[in-house]
């Protein structure tokens, strides 16, 4: 029974919360950095220096003059261009996946979370790293499956948890080639053993390892010389070494990846990646060449230097970005500020201090030396 008088009273007394909570502190200014003779930019994710590559820029210009900027439609409705098809071919060939097919997404985060949500359903079990990145977390929430966490990069903990959980359901394992939050390289051979023992399907996130690890830059699978057919799906963003925007998903089995075309929401209900960004990736893959080998030397030398200075370096020697932690957040802020004043910019976020290396520092030894000098000074002042 609907009591009108009571309703009117409740409506009168109804005071909704404000749409957004009132912020006590005003938002801070967004920071920008412009690289020049005295400023060294380690904030941008530009490991192989593709963002400054003129060949790629010219190729993008040519594509805009032929295809326009946007594709004006989802891939299902005339949004797939022949460039997209070529990219899908070339990605699966580059990663040596026998299926010859891949899916391109227009946003890196959505590539990862949508691909996971397309497979994992409510009754399944997902085994995820406790330090999984934000995009994977989104995918886990969207899929509503039961999530079992194991210790960071620890296959033995995974084995223990797998023995206890999810005996009758479908099981999935999600690992990252190079962890976004700590920079550690995944111990893939051991993970693969555990997964095969417990019949788990493996999704590998190679965003930061594509173009960096492995003799030809094919990622963590090549780094360990494993058979690509042992993994079910490789997902990654183009926002790492390749220097573009968007993401992709590929795998060794043709039917599996083709089914993603029908079930992945981020693919079906969104416009496709603009054509010039597709061309940037195509060109980037062509130009990788032997850069990973040279980059590995840079990564190694910076890692050793930072350890000598006495910093707590969390990331592995092969990682393309270096993650440093100090004893407190304030101390990190002070180091960050000090280096910025001296002209060396890097990122300070909730994981710590992140230095994104750039291969062109190998060709500019004075600038590399300057980075070393500033870091050495900072370590003397603060540590």
């Amino acid at each position, binding site marked *: 029974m609907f009591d009108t008088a*009571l309703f009117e009273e409740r*409506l009168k007394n109804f005071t909704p919360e404000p749409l957004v909570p009132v912020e006590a502190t005003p938002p801070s200014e967004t920071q920008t*950095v412009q690289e020049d003779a005295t400023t060294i930019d380690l904030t941008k994710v530009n490991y192989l220096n593709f963002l400054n590559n003129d060949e790629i820029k010219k190729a993008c210009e040519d594509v805009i003059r032929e295809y*326009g900027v946007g594709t004006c439609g989802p891939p299902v409705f005339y*949004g797939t261009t022949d460039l997209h098809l070529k990219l899908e071919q070339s990605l699966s060939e580059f990663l040596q996946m026998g299926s010859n097919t891949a899916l391109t997404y227009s*946003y890196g985060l959505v590539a990862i979370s949508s691909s996971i949500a397309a497979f994992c359903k409510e009754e399944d079990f997902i085994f995820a790293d406790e330090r999984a990145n934000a995009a994977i977390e989104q995918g886990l929430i969207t899929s509503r499956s039961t999530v079992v966490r194991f210790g960071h990069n620890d296959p033995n903990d995974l084995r223990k948890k797998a023995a206890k959980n999810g005996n009758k359901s479908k099981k999935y394992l999600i690992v990252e080639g190079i962890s976004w939050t700590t920079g550690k390289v995944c111990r893939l051979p051991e993970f693969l053993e555990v997964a095969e023992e417990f*019949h788990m399907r493996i999704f590998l996130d190679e965003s930061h390892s594509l173009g960096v690890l492995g003799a030809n830059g094919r990622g963590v699978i090549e780094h360990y010389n494993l058979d690509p057919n042992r993994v079910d799906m490789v997902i990654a963003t183009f926002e790492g070494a390749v220097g573009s925007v968007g993401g992709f998903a590929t795998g060794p*089995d043709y039917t599996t990846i083709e089914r993603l075309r029908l079930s992945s929401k981020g693919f079906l209900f969104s416009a496709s990646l603009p054509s010039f960004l597709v061309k940037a990736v195509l060109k980037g893959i062509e130009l990788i060449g032997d850069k990973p080998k040279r980059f590995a030397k840079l990564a190694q030398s910076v890692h050793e230097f930072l350890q000598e200075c006495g910093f707590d370096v969390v990331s592995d020697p092969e990682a393309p970005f270096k993650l440093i932690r100090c004893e407190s957040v304030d101390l990190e802020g002070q180091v960050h500020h000090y280096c910025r004043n001296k002209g060396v910019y890097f990122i300070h976020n909730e994981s710590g201090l992140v230095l994104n290396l750039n291969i062109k520092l190998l060709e500019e030894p004075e600038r590399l030396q300057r980075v070393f000098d500033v870091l050495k000074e900072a370590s003397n002042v603060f540590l």
Partner: protein
Amino acid sequence: METRMEEGAGDTVTELLNGVDFENNTHQKGISNGYGPYSGTLTNGYTCINKKNGYTRGRRQNGHVLASSDEECTSKTMKGPIKNGYVKAASEEPLPKTRIIKESFEPPTLLTAALTHISFYILMFLGYLSQALFPPKVAKEKNRDGYSPLFDKFSSFYSMYVYRRIRDCWNYPICSVPGNEVVLKDRVTRDNGWTFEFTGSKTKCINLASYNYLGFAEKSGPCAEAAIDSIYKYGVTTGGTRQQYGTCDLHVELEKLTAEFLGVEDAITFGMGFATNALNIPTLLSPGCLVISDEKNHASLILGIRLPGATVKVFKHNDVQHLEEILRENIYKGQPNQPKGAYKPWKKILIVVEGVYSMEGTIVRLPEIIALKKKYKAYLYLDEAHSIGAMGKHGRGIVDYFGCDPKEIDILMGTFTKSFGSAGGYIAGTKELISFLRKNSFASKHAWAMAPPVAAQIIAVLKILMGKDGTNEGQKRIETLARNTRYFRKKIEQMGIIIHGNDDSPVVPILVYLYSKIAAMVRILIQEKIATVGVGYPATPLMEGRIRICLSAAHTKEQLDYALQVIEKVANELGLKYSRKPINSEPIEYDKIKVYED
């Protein structure tokens, strides 16, 4: 076998909407059977509760339903109160300008509905037979013996034996800019859809499929040049997130221009429209909030609404009365599952609607919903993905179309993919809202900033639309789109084909009902060099397969005439003339259509 249509079914409903104060309406029950033409005397609004087929008949000042088409005068001698889509008051009190909504949803005949059902059963039966006789031509998964299969049996069956037969209608690759004409890369299938081969030839088709409402998908011109310049100035991408050194001047300029264009305080932009909904709605909601969303909302909105754990209620598509009922019921009951049935009021109530619905072609009843939200103290989220740029006298979307105040809508959202020929999405509103999102939104913290060429294209288009480049190119395009829409819709109705949606929406769904007819029509149209989109289950209800046409300001009259000619031919061949409405065979002249003139 003729089946009689229900009285009044399928009529075009013409209603007046007003940004009215619902509180001062006196509701009386009264049923009138015959009404004279609108007279000058104003009754203080009474609603007539006589519903048939989802709309009211009756006479009311606000939401006045016209009794006959005499009342809608489009002739020069103004007999009735309506001219060019607006009502002029004939009384002492000045009425605010009101907008007429003309929508039609003619239902199919019983025979058609029955045939559609039967066709599905036949398809399923044939599919099962094929599966038994011809096992699938796909390799088994390697290294995966003893694993449970990735996909369940029914969806595998559906995709391999039902969808596969007609899957050549979708995912067609193109090799040119998706302007008013598009070049398709021909492909054939020699084994009934299992694999495709490219023949190497290309076909140029009229593009009725891409979302290119204002025709800005161009490969040359000021927008393309601006995009190319920005590659060399700022790079292909900025290499970081918005909060961590990824912002450049273009982003700041874009947000300022967007806020100015929409008439609000501030705006924030993201690189993908889908993600704008899916990643930002969760920041605004929490358990204890109530979300009321339209039945036919887009998948990205549904994803964003489901994630945060708030309570969700769905109201019937565009049915303001049902929305009001849900509001009243839920404010009365408060939050559910309280201990001992205690009453706990909701933390906030959010109404989520879209401007133009892309599958139906309907336009949201914005003034009525704004009035409701004020009365019941709710917040309104308006997703203008398809309407920004395409509707309204100055292209500012549904808010402009109805003449409402943009500051009355709490959260304005839209995408740049459709009318701007680019990519990305935005959210606009008050400064507090945008500052909060800048700091706390998931996309702001973790997603890469919009690529500079994409932002440069949008800035160039916004400047053209606002007239800041010194020409009136923007206004011309907006008018051309409105004219094309009217012309095309009127002509198709004259053919006797059923189309859904509002008379002013540039999205035209042609109903074909049967699954097989979708495929047949798309294939024949491609042969005749017209590219269209066929949509069936699950994007639309099972029995309502349709061909969806998106008009554009870039289409010329000749292209539209050719398309109409071909559609008429196909309609005769396939039997698509389902409409039982009387046909008004007055010839329609393109140049004499009046749009947006007072």
